[in-house]
């Protein structure tokens, strides 16, 4: 009996012991039940958001393989800011640049410029010809062609300098040329290069005038060369994603697009450094101004114009060809806009009263009656109040760029409209809330960029400095040069081919023409003329 009682007591004690050990397990159960409830609620919510509607297509992975097929010899005409960047995209940087960026990466671990350059694919090409009217830059290009610090190792051969671009084009060993001169030279060089059978990568804007655009288009079509226009946004992952969303009709009918540019620094307003070594002996000024409508003798004013050419209509088209062209082309990429029916523009020189004749505050309105669409562009060079680009649909709006609040570079957000028809039920049931985005795209959000200067940040927000492929950071200029070289080898059309390049050139020319004449400009597609 007492043995039994002892046994019972012991069993009872064991049970109590066990219960005390497991006393908090129900708390874990409660936790898991609540977690499960939260997860199912989140899942339901997500199912009602755009993220599930969007086909999760990734941007095209960089296709390797074509680079091996044929070695290409390239020439550079115009080795300035953009020219040197494009040549780097092809795999050639000056020793000064590789040394400085290597040093920067050591001092600032977040600065990835050197690593990004060195991890570029070797495009299997040589920089063999250089033409620049300023000795210092021509020598820098030669230096770049010989620098052994490059993706793919030692360069095959160094470049030869040509005083005039026609001499460079006469070199039968050169397959393709990058044209990164000021805009007033684009059409002449592109046409002559095409006639010489060279493929052309031409910086934007394609041409300075409408007539030049027609000539370039006809010559490129006739000769069959591969032309790539320098809108590297064509390689930006975010634009591909935005296109998918819009193609699926998730924004509903779109009647208004607003594109903006905000910059607020002398550099951003093209007040670029006048090189201390720039003088009548080192600069071929007469050749430089040969195609420009107005000529001036060499002197201080000429030096200003040589180094800050974007400030004058003699050499470029100001905001139109420099920055509007980028935003327009990105929108043309996303929405296949084509050339507008009408364009009007206005603005003025309101801040930089430094002798320039292009406006520093400038706006353009493009009308597409057949698409029931207006596109507004608004730019200022005296405020950094970044407004982003907006595509306004009846059901939802998309904001691209300038969205530091979501921590993205070149990403976008989509927010539903309170009066949306497509999302009415979800809005009424509260599953969709107009206060929060229904879709956020922030590429490389798990990666960090050390983009520091304000202008770099401007480009980065527009996705022009870096884009992402499979989460890996790449320079879109490199991808754009690669796309061009691959198209030459494969006999295909590059992403910013002559057709879309022509649309860009005509659209920008219409807007520029409207500003200069103070009237609305109409495009007559049948007769290919401006009215």
């Amino acid at each position, binding site marked *: 009996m007492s043995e039994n009682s002892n046994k019972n007591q012991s069993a009872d004690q064991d049970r109590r*012991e066990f219960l005390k*050990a*497991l006393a*908090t397990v129900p708390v874990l159960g409660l*936790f898991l039940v609540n977690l499960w409830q939260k*997860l199912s609620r989140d899942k339901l919510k997500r199912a009602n958001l755009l993220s599930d509607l969007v086909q999760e297509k990734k941007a095209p992975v960089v296709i390797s393989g074509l680079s091996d097929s044929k070695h290409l010899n390239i020439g550079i005409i115009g080795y300035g800011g953009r020219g040197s960047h494009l040549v780097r995209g092809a795999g050639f940087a000056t020793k000064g640049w590789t040394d400085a960026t290597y040093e920067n990466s050591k001092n600032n*671990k977040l600065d990835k410029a050197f690593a990004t350059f060195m991890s570029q694919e070797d495009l299997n090409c040589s920089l063999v010809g250089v033409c620049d009217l300023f000795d210092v830059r021509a020598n820098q290009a030669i230096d770049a062609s010989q620098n052994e610090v490059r993706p793919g190792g030692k360069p095959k051969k160094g470049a030869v300098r040509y005083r005039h671009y026609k001499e460079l084009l006469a070199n039968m060993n050169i397959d393709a040329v990058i044209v990164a001169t000021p805009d007033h030279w684009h059409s002449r060089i592109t046409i002559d290069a095409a006639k010489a059978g060279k493929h052309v990568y031409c910086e934007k804007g394609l041409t300075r005038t409408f007539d030049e655009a027609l000539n370039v288009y006809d010559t490129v079509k006739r000769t069959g060369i591969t032309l790539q226009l320098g809108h590297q946004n064509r390689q930006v992952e975010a634009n591909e994603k935005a296109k998918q969303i819009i193609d699926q009709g998730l924004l509903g009918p779109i009647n208004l697009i607003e594109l903006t540019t905000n910059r607020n620094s002398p550099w951003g307003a093209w007040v670029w450094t006048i090189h201390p070594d720039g003088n009548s002996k080192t600069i071929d000024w007469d050749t430089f101004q040969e195609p420009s409508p107005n000529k001036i003798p060499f002197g201080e004013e000429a030096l200003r114009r040589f180094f800050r050419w974007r400030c004058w209509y003699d050499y470029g088209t100001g905001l139109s060809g420099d920055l509007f062209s980028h935003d327009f082309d990105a929108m043309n990429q996303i929405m296949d806009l084509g050339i507008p029916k009408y364009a009007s523009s206005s603005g003025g020189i309101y801040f930089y009263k430094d002798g320039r004749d292009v406006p520093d505050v400038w706006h353009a309105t493009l009308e597409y009656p057949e698409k029931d669409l207006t596109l507004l562009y608004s730019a200022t060079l005296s405020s950094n109040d970044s407004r982003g680009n907006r595509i306004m649909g009846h059901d939802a709006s998309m904001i691209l760029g300038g969205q530091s609040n979501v921590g993205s570079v070149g990403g976008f957000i989509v927010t539903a409209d309170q009066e949306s028809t497509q999302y009415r039920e979800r809005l009424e049931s509260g599953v969709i809330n107009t206060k929060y985005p229904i879709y956020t795209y922030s590429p490389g959000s*798990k990666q*960090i960029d050390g983009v520091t200067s304000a202008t770099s940040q401007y480009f980065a927000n527009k996705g022009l400095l870096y884009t992402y492929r499979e989460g890996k950071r790449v320079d879109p200029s490199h991808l754009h040069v690669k796309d061009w070289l691959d198209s030459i080898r494969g006999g295909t059309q590059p992403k910013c081919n002559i057709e879309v390049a022509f649309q860009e050139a005509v659209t920008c020319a219409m807007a520029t023409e409207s500003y200069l004449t103070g009237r609305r400009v109409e495009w007559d597609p049948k007769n290919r003329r401006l009215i």
Partner: protein
Amino acid sequence: MTDQKHILTPGIVVNNLQFYGLVALRVLIGWHILYEGIAKLINPYWSSAAYLLDSKWIFSGWAESIVSDPTLLTISDYVNMWGLTLVGLCLVLGLYSRHAAIGGMVFILLYYLFAPPLLGLEYSRPGEGSYLIVNKNLIEACALFVLYTFPTSHLIGLDRLLSKPASK
């Protein structure tokens, strides 16, 4: 019942109210840390980078090194996600609770030290309260230290099964 004494360590004996207060503190902190870990595990976009990038004070250089190295950043992400989940689970269940308390304290103290609300330090991430030197991280880390010094899991928790004979 009210007079029942609980022996936490050979030198610490507490009454019922004190004891269950400590158990509640352990379970509640465990719950919080467990969910912090699981929320990171189930969010495919979570990364410790944003927090580290905003780091100020003595550890900012270390934070920068972690962020700039993809391998270190990935390790940091995994350590945070799984570390917090494990610590939280152990505190709730009362399993290896003293180790878990120390582990949790180290985690949370690091969060404090990477971004302490000291005078003159400005953060770009919006805070969820108003703090001057002392914030909730510091308090939670301190509470975990209290849990370490006043262990309860050998009485209520799975540790009881591991440290059985003592109570008999």
